[in-house]
């Protein structure tokens, strides 16, 4: 199983340092979710793990080799990333988009093999887009569009898949669809998944491993049940809350308190 790991990462945009001296090991074959407030560096970290951003210091290792010194096509056969809200060119059809996911596996003489065709067919089936294959991506609904991009990443057939806020701009039903699909990829195909998610409760429900970030540092990581506590949520998100048990998945369920509601006994007993 391919291991993804980072050592002493320093990430910056020009002179503004976003992440400094960060170490991280992604558990192979599991779903890892990175959470944190806006601008805490979680998307930046994901981009660095996927070699879309070169670190100022430190190294990202994929399968024991630095991602920035490995040929990028070779990395693309092992690691896929879906960036945050990508935009498809006008008129590009779903099947054309999904087919692009095969490009790391193609070469001069091998433009469209039976393996390519099988991967694209399977990706379309898994995302329930087979009937929409010939429609232009820009004419689809938000949920269908996001599924088309995920289908492209699936067709890439990488053992490690990174997703940057895959549920953004989706309604609730489509959010659940996408997250269930991610679980399928993990359970059925053993892919290692790393996601950035905004919704803490979805993170608790879908993650095997949660990484909580604040100001460019990892403040806690581990299984959701041990990591997600009222103290941590207050520290990371600056929000007072209660944490109870999700009746469906029996994972932590975070309920923010806010200023207009009295602090109940339950919260005081948890947080004090």
């Amino acid at each position, binding site marked *: 199983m391919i291991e993804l790991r980072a050592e002493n990462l320093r990430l910056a945009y020009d002179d503004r340092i976003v992440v400094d001296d960060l170490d991280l090991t992604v558990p192979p074959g599991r779903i890892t979710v990175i959470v944190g407030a806006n601008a805490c560096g979680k998307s930046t970290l994901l981009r660095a793990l*996927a*070699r*879309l951003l070169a670190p100022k210091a430190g190294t990202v290792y994929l399968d024991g080799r630095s991602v920035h010194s490995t040929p*990028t*096509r*070779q*990395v*693309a*056969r092992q690691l*896929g*990333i*879906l*960036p945050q809200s*990508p*935009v*498809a*060119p*006008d*008129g*590009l*059809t779903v*099947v*054309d*988009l999904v087919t*692009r*996911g095969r*490009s*790391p596996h*193609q070469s001069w*003489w*091998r*433009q*469209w*093999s*039976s393996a*390519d*065709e099988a991967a694209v067919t399977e990706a379309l089936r898994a995302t329930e887009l087979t009937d929409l294959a*010939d429609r*232009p991506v820009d004419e689809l609904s938000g949920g269908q569009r996001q599924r088309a991009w995920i289908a*492209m*990443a699936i067709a*890439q057939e990488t053992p490690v898949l990174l997703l940057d806020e895959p549920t953004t701009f989706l309604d609730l039903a489509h959010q659940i669809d996408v997250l269930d699909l991610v679980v399928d990829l993990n359970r059925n195909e053993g892919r290692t998944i790393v996601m950035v998610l905004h919704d803490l409760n979805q993170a608790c429900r879908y993650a095997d491993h949660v990484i909580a970030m604040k100001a460019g540092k990892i403040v806690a990581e581990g299984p959701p049940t041990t990591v997600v506590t009222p103290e941590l949520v207050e520290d990371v998100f600056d929000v007072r809350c209660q944490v109870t048990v999700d009746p469906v998945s029996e994972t932590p369920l975070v309920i923010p308190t806010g200023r207009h509601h009295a602090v109940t006994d339950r919260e005081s007993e948890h947080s004090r």
Partner: protein
Amino acid sequence: MTVAFRLAAPPISGTLRPRLLGVAVTLGAVAFLLFCLGMTVGDYPLSVGKVVAALFSAGDYYDRVVVYDWRMPRALIGLFVGFAFGMSGALFQTITRNPLASPDMLGIAAGATTAVVGGIVLGIGSGLGTQPLGLAGALASALLIYLLAWQRGTTGYRIILVGIGVSWACNSATSYLLAHAKLYEAQQIVGWLVGNLNDSTWNLAVPLVIAMAVLVPVTVALSGWLRALHLGDDVAAALGTPVQAARLSLLIAGVALVAFATAAAGPVAFVALAAPQIAKRLAATAAPPLITSGIAGAVVLLGSDLLARELMPDTQLPVGVVTGLLGAPFLLWLLARANRAGSGG
């Protein structure tokens, strides 16, 4: 709807898109017909049949002399200049994801023009001829646009606006140079400025043909990277494209195509803008198809030149006047469409 067939003889495999192939072959046949028709025009009467016979080294000796020595440079320059403009337009429009970002809008052709005019007026590099000057000018203006606009993100109107700025700066420089030109130089330049095939000779055609023989295969070889860049930088990188190197080499190829074409025939307006859009609409593809855009460019240029010579046989109307007349309404239509769809930027 996209129809694609899989062709495979393991380990070799590929796809065949019947509609794209059909459009390319049809446009290719039209281009060949216009290429031959263009060589029938002139004082010595020749039929299309005689031209074709002469092309294949058959037929009358005098016909062959007329075709090869007199008329072929013009036809060849028209063919390749059109092809180069069409192909580079497809390159730029795909990289920027913007149908308005063609090299003639961005001031790359204008940069080549300024360099060539400067060379004629100031007598710099007159020994070099127009081709290296055009190349240097196109590269310089492309570099300027790259530095001013291209460093962060490639899409949007930023490139267009900076490009238009560079274009106007080059045009002013050209006007300044013209004002200092001697009368006979100015006359020579003005004819060339609008895009002109009237002065075609083998001396102009040979460097162009050699440049195209190198640039076209190189560009086609880079088309895989072009397809990836069309999805945006991040997705292209995720799919294993070396984004910086890919974009730089594609831009250099595109700039070189424009530079050699401009040096041979002047900045012929609108071909680079219109041909890729024509090819894209005929073939119903998401991005302008490279080779088909080139063929469409050749059809537009050869057709416009033929039109100019048929309509006004006595005045030697420059081909750029015709492409300008045809292109202006096309540009307006494209702008109106882009605005309505909320895209184009």
